[in-house]
């Protein structure tokens, strides 16, 4: 896993908000309609949509995750994913 941007000062809430914006844009939904605790597969996100989210994360947070373990625990919801990004920034 490539970890960059060590000086980033974003809070976990900022990350979650930015991530939800990215997910909303990828699935053509309103950000307000996305619950951060809802599993991504329940939002109709498939392999391709998930990879698009990972590309968004790399562009926005400079974290490359495609070869990470992508465990369900860390990646299932926008909230758990934000927490994972926060820990690895």
């Amino acid at each position, binding site marked *: 896993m490539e970890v960059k941007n060590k000086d980033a000062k974003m809070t976990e809430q900022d990350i979650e908000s930015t991530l939800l914006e990215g997910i909303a844009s990828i699935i053509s939904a309103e950000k307000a309609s996305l619950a951060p605790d809802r599993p991504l597969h329940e939002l109709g996100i498939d*392999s*391709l949509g998930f*990879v698009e989210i990972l590309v968004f994360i790399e562009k926005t947070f400079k974290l490359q995750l*495609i070869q990470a373990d992508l*465990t369900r625990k860390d990646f299932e919801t926008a909230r758990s994913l934000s927490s994972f990004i926060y820990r690895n920034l």
Partner: protein
Amino acid sequence: MAFQYLSIKNRYYLSGFDWVMGVMDLIMKHTTCSGNASQIVLMLDAPLDEIVVRKGLTQFLRLFPVIRGSVARHYTLAPYWRMPDKDAASPLTLTVTRLDDSSSGQGVLGPLTTFINTPFQDKHDHLAFHLVYGRGEQCLAMTFDHRLFDARGAELFLGLFQQFLASGGDAKVAQNISLTRDIDLRGWKQKFLAGQTVNRRIVALTKDRVRAVPLVQQGRMPGFQYRIINFDREEAAGITTRAYAEAGYLMIMPYLFARVAESMHRIFEQRGVGSGAYVVPVSTDLRRAKDVRDELFFNRNSMFFFQVKPTDATDPKRLIASLKEQMYQQVQIKFPEKLMEASSLMRIFPLSLMRMAFHLPLEGKLASYCFSHVSKDTFASMDFLGARITNLFHMPRTPVPPGIGVFFNSFNGRLNATISCLEGAFSEEEIDAIEKDLRCSL
């Protein structure tokens, strides 16, 4: 200032990818018994009333003159789909087949294979429906020309028909369906740059020789043979769990692809198909509209191109990692969108010229096999005219070359794998082996 021609009534300007589907259609009409078509099958727990279906279809199809369209050229050479007037009657093709004890042991798959291998009657004919009444199983099938719909669009269309019947024939279901598209004769620089990206990827993929099974010319135009592998909800849930464990959360597509790649590699090796790597086109849906009716007709698909090295095909962990990495890289450079953009440059060329051009660069070895995974249930209803839909699967005619493909779709928690193979390309034993492999390895 660039000129802008807007779509007008009765005219839908084709995208580059629509044009590519037209080339595929022509190639397949020259090399197989029919064109580039596919079929959706709804398996039902009770037989449908033929009279109700026939009446409903007659009324429903009348709402869509687009389904009787044909290809024409604008004076700028941009190809378009010319639609007849609204009042033009849409002749209905509905066949009814009753299987008895003397029918072949294939059940409904026998007649379904015949339907998909039957060419449409003329250049305005793009759709046919079939009712099959078997012993203990029955189905409704829709055969469609791929120039008119992609797989998801066809599911949506069948879903609209279901809604039309459920509403007692309310024509409102056909309202606000978008049937216009800009002629797209600008942004040339962007299109050429997209072409450059696509070219680079294709060159990189074909540095190694492309492994492909030689397609033997027979005396007659061959059809396609099929195997449908059904996984029930429990089995499909198990596959999802294993995919998450081996490939990662939501990585079902790379997981399924890897299992297919391993099985194909075994067959190619047994056949002694030469050196080089596998090149596998994988179709992907580019729909973005919130209202699916805006993107119902024509093609909204594009492609990823994957390379599978034989050394990776025997190492599951490395294979999955490679497929994920390639998918990521292609999403990153927006390869499918660029392929779509670049393909619009090809619209100027006649289909016959394109047919030859498709064979030139790689001596006809364009790909090793096809793969796709339609993960989203587009057909939303669980019943049809009072009968419960027990399953929904697709039977595509795989583009030739390569003439062999494995296509996955999901329906109501179930997973289906369709093996579609040009007659003569693989033997029965080889198809049996792929089926067995997938049943065991997934």
